[in-house]
């Protein structure tokens, strides 16, 4: 059974350029800057550098793992069940949410037991992650793109990495903004949105590199 699974995985991933999938997800198709997902925690957390790094790492880890789990559940459970009249496209949403919530909860418990240091570095951000749309978004997009389980893992790791890069860059820029003179009405979210726009332009400008 496991051999069969590994065999199908290997067969379906050959010929696809995993590196291209990763960098497309992380840079040119950046989930935050071109799809606007995960904006809420981005806008509020990017004012602190340390917290941004912690949240970014937590997002990479959770997105990559749930992406693989959800892709596997979708292709090996929901799609075969479709034959018996189970509406896969409607159920996928509920399934993904429950998997993400359960995974985050489990991870929080494990981290708390294993390492208190890690718990205080990452664990405090985990509740924020359950409602982070970037993670659910990456999971939904990888199904839309018809990616296999392993490609899905690479894609969602890339999406998480792109989100982390964006929030860490923004946190760095916002440190400098503190000394800048900004029109009073534009302070806070306004100027952050404008910088996001400029960053998005820069990231899209890299699209010639891939393909």
């Amino acid at each position, binding site marked *: 059974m496991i051999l069969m699974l590994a065999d199908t995985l290997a067969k379906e991933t050959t010929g696809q350029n995993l590196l291209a999938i990763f960098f497309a997800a992380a840079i040119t198709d950046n989930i935050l800057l071109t*799809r606007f997902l995960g*904006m*809420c925690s981005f806008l509020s957390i990017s004012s602190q550098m340390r917290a941004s790094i912690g949240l970014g790492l937590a997002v990479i880890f959770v997105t990559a793992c749930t992406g693989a789990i959800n892709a596997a559940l979708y292709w090996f459970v929901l799609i075969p069940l479709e034959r018996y009249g189970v509406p896969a496209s*409607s159920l996928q949403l*509920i399934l993904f*949410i*429950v998997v993400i919530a359960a995974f985050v909860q489990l991870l929080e418990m494990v981290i708390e037991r294993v390492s208190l240091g890690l718990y205080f570095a990452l664990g405090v951000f985990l509740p924020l992650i359950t409602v982070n749309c970037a993670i659910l978004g990456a999971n*939904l997009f990888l199904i*839309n793109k018809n990616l296999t389980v392993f490609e899905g893992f690479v894609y969602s790791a890339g999406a998480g990495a792109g989100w982390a890069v964006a929030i860490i860059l923004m946190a760095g820029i916002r440190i400098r903004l503190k000394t800048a003179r900004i029109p009073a009405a534009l302070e806070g979210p306004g100027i952050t949105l404008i910088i996001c726009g400029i960053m*998005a332009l820069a990231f899209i400008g890299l699209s010639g590199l891939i393909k």
Partner: protein
Amino acid sequence: MPPDTVSTPGGALARQFWAENPIFRQVLGICSALAVTNLMFNTLLMCGGLIWATSMSAVTVSLMRRLIPQRVRMITEVLIIAVYVIMVDIAMRVFFPEIHRVIAAYVGLIVTNCIVMGRLEAYASKNTPFNAFCDGLGSGLGYSLILMAVATVREVLGFGTIMGYPLPARELWWHQWTLMVMPPGAFFVLAGGVWIARWFAMRREAAAAQSPPAPQAAPPQQGGAE
């Protein structure tokens, strides 16, 4: 008007629609819908779905507010929202199949929209069903107002159309502004909107701080910074 203390249905609706507008005041919940704002019709559909999800899930949560155990409250609320979002998804697939193919993933993302969750947590789980409904409706409408404004700017500048109909005599005066079709356009338009709204709000607050002061020695430099 302090937030979340108004208990009349009309007051709740008005507060969420304008005074505490989720986007301009709090810049929340732009995640799921900003990506579709380069076309007005897609935006309209997304907003419709969002209004339905916010108001109906508010009613449901409010009806169940004494039944939901505290520990599993969040996940229960998410599942309630998911049920309404799936209804929207199915309806859209039936009535607008071509558009559904483009925006399906974003419709699903209404589930994690911060506004929906936020209103359920802050208001619906503590108030009566009709008030909760008005609160949800108001925040949905306030959200749609802003997104439709963003979509109008982007579609006119990016495609030269309104709701898919070309502007009059656009060959003569209109040039495509490609930036508006691309994602960065949404950031710039929204930032401009936030800027203007905040500027007005700050001016009004400054005027309010100046006009009704007590007769004794008011500090002269207050509010005169602009």
